């Protein structure tokens, strides 16, 4: 529902031309045909499953789940309103923002999907390759285009990769999923090292801009941090290089054991040296062939879509004084913007007690209004299940905060212990062993006190309901993994993981805790940190210095007593 007082704004982002629109439209028709063939029985479920997965449709615990692509986490207000409309019309009035910056609806009917896809196509959205054994949504730093920390905005590259990977004929039946992230800073807000492949914009010693490519990161049963494949790929060669990596993966990956089919397994089996050698061989050949070269004009053409908005000059460059509640929120949720007078505002969808990452249709619509009024019509989705208004005037921050308070999205907790990542878990997911959302809620309520949160400082808790690790538990400072012990939910603690530029795989503590014990166990672990930390040490730093032992002793102490 359009608020008549708010004037919609079109942000600077990629716009479909007639080719893109036709592509998505034909894809919708194709899937509509596949749905019809499934309903008539011409396709069995076994045959239909990979086809519906490649259009983002899962069969989950209660119903079908549809995963909508949000390329590099960027949404316009028009798109946000359409998502609200779909939530209201075809689902139960809410959606869930995921750790790959997509949006999921949990109660979708198969027969409605072609209609939903057509509605999405109207606002230049789709569900192509958001699941299946293919290249998935390309994610990016949520501060792209707004931070002064980056060499350049990585999203034009992400858009180029998106197009190149869309229905790539050679790579739609890979051994497993393939996730790509892009970034352009030393600070890694996109968990690049945890991806199957990541591209970081870098500058070489001569000041030339190119791309560092890494591969082989991944979560799941056997977590790995990525290896560098090439320190510097020239701009025009990047698609040839990415194709080389994908080809080596497609031809050389195992196909006999579903748990051993990600690229991380291939690279760690043959070794990164050998992987680099195989990729280099393909790369040289593809470069010679020339068909994948990326002309500078094309890069510039795509880059122009992402031009920064017209920033006003002469604005106040101080954050206004608007009371203690606002000051708390500004302290954690507002980040430095490259333009004077501007700021980056994070909307944490993590008010203690809420379902992490969820928003109702009404909340989405109010956020769309905020986008139009205060952020040039644009929002970003983060892999930590939060939203970011990338270009806000500092002087507008109090008004934004006031509106977020009405929405119950004003928790001043970005990066703090209550800013928890949690997958949907056993409440929704067919794959899950245990529920994760209630655990997130109970931990967030336990640590709700803001003074205590600030005393604790930066502490990233990540909760997965099963080993598939959609909650990124391996990358949590404190990770929690739900397991099934004879039909009862148990939770393992994992300490010392990181999804930032200091990426590390967390260490499993030991036997799991029951549903009613896990929050207390987390508290005992946190108390050890508070007792033993040195000045300036985050939880993660203290853990890395001290090691597992004291945390483990404290966690199990109650049971030993």
């Amino acid at each position, binding site marked *: 529902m359009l608020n008549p007082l708010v004037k919609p704004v079109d942000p600077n982002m990629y716009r479909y031309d007639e*080719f893109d629109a*036709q*592509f998505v439209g034909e894809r919708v*028709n194709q899937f509509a045909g596949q749905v019809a063939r499934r309903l008539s029985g011409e396709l069995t479920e076994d045959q239909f499953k990979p086809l519906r997965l490649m259009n983002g449709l899962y069969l989950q615990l209660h119903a079908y789940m549809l995963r909508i692509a949000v390329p590099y986490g960027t949404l316009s207000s028009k798109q946000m309103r359409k998502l609200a409309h779909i939530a209201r019309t075809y689902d139960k009035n809410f959606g869930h923002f995921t750790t790959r910056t997509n949006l999921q609806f949990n109660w979708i009917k198969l027969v409605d999907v072609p209609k939903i896809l057509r509605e999405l196509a109207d606002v230049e959205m789709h569900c192509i390759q958001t699941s299946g054994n293919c290249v998935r949504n390309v994610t990016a730093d949520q501060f792209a285009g707004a931070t002064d920390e980056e060499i350049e905005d990585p999203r034009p590259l992400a858009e180029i990769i998106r*197009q190149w990977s869309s229905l790539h004929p050679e790579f739609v*039946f890979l*051994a497993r999923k393939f996730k790509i992230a892009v970034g352009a800073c030393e600070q890694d807000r996109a968990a690049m090292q945890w991806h199957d492949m990541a591209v970081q914009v870098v500058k070489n010693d001569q000041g030339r801009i190119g791309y560092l490519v890494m591969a082989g990161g991944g979560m799941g049963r056997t977590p790995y941090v990525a290896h560098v494949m090439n320190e510097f790929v020239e701009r025009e060669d990047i698609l040839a290089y990415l194709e080389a990596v994908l080809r080596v993966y*497609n*031809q050389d990956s195992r196909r006999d054991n579903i748990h051993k089919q990600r690229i991380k397994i291939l690279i760690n089996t043959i070794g990164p040296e050998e992987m680099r050698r195989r990729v280099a061989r393909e790369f040289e050949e593809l470069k010679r062939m020339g068909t994948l070269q990326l002309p500078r004009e094309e890069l510039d053409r795509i880059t122009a879509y992402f031009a920064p908005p017209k920033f006003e000059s002469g604005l106040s460059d101080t954050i206004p004084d608007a009371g203690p509640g606002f000051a708390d929120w500004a302290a954690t949720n507002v980040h430095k913007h490259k333009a004077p007078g501007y700021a980056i505002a994070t909307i944490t969808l993590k008010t203690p007690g809420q379902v992490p990452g969820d928003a109702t249709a009404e909340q989405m619509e109010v956020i769309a209004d905020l986008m139009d009024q205060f952020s040039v019509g644009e929002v970003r989705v983060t892999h930590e299940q939060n939203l970011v208004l990338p270009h806000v005037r500092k002087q507008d921050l109090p008004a934004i905060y006031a509106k977020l308070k009405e929405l119950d999205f004003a928790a001043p907790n970005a990066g703090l212990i209550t800013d928890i990542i949690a997958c949907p878990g056993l409440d929704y997911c067919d794959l899950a062993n245990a529920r994760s959302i209630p655990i997130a809620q109970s931990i967030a309520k336990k640590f709700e006190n803001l003074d205590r949160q600030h005393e604790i400082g930066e502490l990233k808790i990540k909760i997965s309901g099963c080993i598939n690790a959609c909650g990124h538990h391996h990358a949590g400072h404190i990770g929690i993994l739900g397991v099934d012990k004879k039909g009862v939910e148990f939770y393992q603690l994992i300490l010392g993981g990181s999804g930032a530029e200091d990426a590390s795989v967390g260490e499993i503590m030991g036997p799991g805790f029951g549903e009613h014990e896990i929050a207390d166990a987390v508290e005992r672990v946190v108390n050890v940190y508070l007792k033993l930390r040195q000045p300036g040490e985050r939880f993660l730093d203290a853990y890395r210095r001290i090691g597992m032992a004291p945390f483990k002793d404290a966690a199990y102490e109650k049971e030993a007593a």
Partner: protein
Amino acid sequence: MTKLIKSGAYAQDVFAPLADDAALPEGAVLVSLTRFQKERETLLARNTPIGIRLQSSENPEVLGADVNHFSLIALEFPKFRDGRAFSWARILRTRLGYSGEIRAVGDFLYDQVNYQHRVGFDAWEVPDNFTLEMFNRALTEMTNVYQPSSDGKKTIRELRAGK
């Protein structure tokens, strides 16, 4: 039962599949990699077309300089999910410069035919209920493509630039 679609029409399959332990008959035969490696000289010395059927784990690079002796290379899809043959076809057309028939055999879906066609397959062994009309429809569901492949089809980028 199956039939053969080649270059957009029904075709007679002139290649007789030859088991690894069967005697070598007159005429065109389709052999496994194992058999070819054992009887290479014999098979190549005959003045008849020869075809080879590769399993999804068999990289056609193993054929080396022999690749263009084959009139037919059949690439197997043991299960439609096993997409290695898409890369094998691409490698055959590019690195190995193979210009003969590349045939899709085994378990594949109507929905994969377009991708197979793009990467270099030009023949399909299909079940009896798979019609030419279906085949042609499969190739037209998506008018345009974003990335180059063996079919040489103009990419959207090229179309945008008016090429």
